[in-house]
């Protein structure tokens, strides 16, 4: 069963946002990494790029599929997780510890449109 962590915000396209010190750390959920299988490449934006809620900011490729990454919130990318360039498999090892981009959010009220852990868990069950 896929892991879900309390306190994060979840999107219907299986990204999460962890809010820490006012920044949003965005990655894909454990459910998503399970569904994708072995991740072989993460296509990331560059620092200072703008991301928009609901719009694509990159992609994750696995041996099974390539999947777009949609940003759950809008803002400016302040950092990307460079370790994923050489070791994309870290997403399979721990999807929640290995965020993909760090974003300075421009509108924190967008978080209200996302699901909490409980709602996301239900959502995943419906998907099965």
């Amino acid at each position, binding site marked *: 069963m896929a892991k879900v962590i309390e306190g994060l915000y979840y999107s219907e396209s299986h990204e999460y946002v962890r809010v820490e010190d006012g920044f949003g750390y965005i990655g894909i959920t454990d459910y998503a990494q399970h*569904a994708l299988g*072995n991740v*072989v*490449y993460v296509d990331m934006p560059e620092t200072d790029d703008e991301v928009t809620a609901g719009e694509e900011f990159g992609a994750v490729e696995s*041996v*099974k*599929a390539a*999947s777009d990454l949609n940003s759950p919130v809008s803002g400016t990318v302040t950092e990307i997780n460079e370790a994923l360039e050489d070791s*994309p*498999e870290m997403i399979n090892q721990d999807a929640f510890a290995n965020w993909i981009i760090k974003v300075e959010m421009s509108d924190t009220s967008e978080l209200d449109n996302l699901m909490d852990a409980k709602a996301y868990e239900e959502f995943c069950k419906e998907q099965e």
Partner: protein
Amino acid sequence: MNNKLYGNLIFELSKEGRRGYSLPANRFGNYPVPKELQRKEEAGLPECDELTVVRHYTNHSSNNFGVNNGFYPLGSCTMKYNPAIDEEMSAMPEFSNLHPLQPHHTVAGAEDVCNLLSESLKAITGMEAFTLKPYAGAHGELTGLMIIKAYHESRGDMKRTKVIVPDSAHGTNPASAAVCGLSVVEVKSRADGTVDVDDLRSILDETVAAMMMTNPNTLGLFEKSIPEIAELVHSHGALMYYDGANLNPMLGACRPGDMGFDVMHINLHKTFATPHGGGGPGAGPVGVRKGLEQFFPTVSPYQGNFAVAMRAYAYILSLGKENIKMVGPLATLNANYIKESLKDVYELPIDGLCKHEFVFNGLKDKSTGVTTMDVAKRLLDYGYHAPTIYFPLLFHESLMIEPAENESKETMDGFIEVMRRIAEEAKTEPDTVKNAPHNTPIGRVDDVLAAKHPIVTYRQMCNNKQEQ
């Protein structure tokens, strides 16, 4: 093939200075290539005698697997057998020796073939006009979208920048739209696997250029709401595009032109039995309804892949108007026969009648951790080509099976028996399945390593060895 004796790369068989030919003395003098055009280093080509080369390639060719070797239920690809008569017709020197730039009056026969094929395709699809120029399915999609774009622009309607594509669509649909400079909006599927008309209604507006649909869709399901969808899309001024990837089960049963589609392409290499797999050559003729033929773009100065068109026309003629009507029903019957015979051991996510193909979501009993990938690999051990796996993306363990209409009941029974045996093995000896294949020239390959560190040339292989 004995891999130890004959499994080397041709480069590994190279001996410096060895030749498979001897040229007569040069009586004409030397005319050297200008210095600036000469290579600066040796080309590094393998040097072998003729017999070594012949054995090398003959042995490797025996490792190949095609429709002529065995059952090839690769869903979404329609790996249909190519009858020998089609090959004979297209290999006739009168056709195969033509040059594309030959004077017009010397190619009247080939032109006749193109015109007659177009006429046949018009009758089969209900479209008004066809162009045979596109070189493959995705090229046909691009051509079709260019027609749609040109149509809107001709009306001075410049704000149509979006194409609606179902979430079950082939990946080429959004790719073609992007290449054509259009953006993609996804429409959701309902629980029954068909397009969600309510979701479509909420997306449609005056910025939509077209709706692309595959029917039956990639789940092998017939889209029942086409008349309603076509009316809705047309009422917003957009056009309907039919992706002919799955035209096979429709042959003789119904026509896209009658359903309200405005533009479509056909994959001749699927529906009309010409060889494919391994990247072509294909052919993707595009048909349009009346009034749109003026927007055919010039996507090629030639008549497309003529040899493929020739085979398709031979196929259509050899079946004839009466028999071609049986293609769709037989393909549908075969797919449903396999589906019904296996659905107690493989998970069927959407029940009911399918068309020419269907999707399982892996094994019904997943408790031993045997995945769709493992089942596919194990099938190779039993001499079958694997079905399409992990597509469509709507399910996690997609296993997509498509028998073409010309497979016999005995062939399908053999396949069903093996699929049931693998399901049994998954329970009793899961490791055998997880480590498959065992009887193939190469065992389980490491996909992750291959994706992350691809070695595709001999030079890369040598460099890689040095690094280790």
